[in-house]
């Protein structure tokens, strides 16, 4: 629970496409790393796609919504656009990862999470 009781604290939420390809796995692992390191609080993109009211309202009221899409198809970003909610998108293939080819390692996850973390905090 990132922010309690109507305070003025910053609430950054992060979502991953978690798609079937290696890039979806990467997005998911990067999201968990960002959550663990306190950059943003992870929450469910699938719930957003299913139009669940609590998730939508939380996104509408977040300081920043960070969407991690595996590839250029941008499913995550499209869910936000569909609902008219602003987001900051990062696409895993923009970090030199090839969909269906690049092996997802811990070092790769850490490297991309650090890169995104710096951009979010900037």
């Amino acid at each position, binding site marked *: *629970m*990132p*922010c*309690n*009781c*109507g305070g003025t604290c910053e*609430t950054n*939420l992060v979502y991953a496409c978690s798609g079937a390809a290696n890039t979806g796995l990467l997005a998911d692992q990067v999201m968990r790393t960002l959550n663990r390191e306190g950059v943003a*609080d992870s*929450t*469910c993109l699938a*719930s957003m796609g299913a139009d*669940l*009211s*609590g*998730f*939508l*309202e*939380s996104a*509408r*009221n*977040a300081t920043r919504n960070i969407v991690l899409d595996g590839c250029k198809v941008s499913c995550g970003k499209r869910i936000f656009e569909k609902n008219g909610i602003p987001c900051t998108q990062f696409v895993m293939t923009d970090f030199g990862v090839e969909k269906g080819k690049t092996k997802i390692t811990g070092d790769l996850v850490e490297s991309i999470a650090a890169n995104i973390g710096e951009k979010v905090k900037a």
Partner: protein
Amino acid sequence: MKVQILGSGCPKCKLLEQHAREAVAELGIQADIEKVTDIDAIMEMGVMMTPALAIDGDVKSVGRVLTKEQVASYLQGGKFHAL
């Protein structure tokens, strides 16, 4: 009608509950007002900021202490509360 106030029980959560009770009373409607303080239950509803208000399971507001009038607007089916 079921009205849920989601929050840990801090003063702002209690204020939202008070506003909800006042709105229900003024509108003269039949509603059960329930406080949800369990963090897991709150997060299962997708609420990442409290206090939050849900009506019949539909989350209407998160991270804000709505006024009595704003709660009343939601109770009457308003899509967006009057700011």
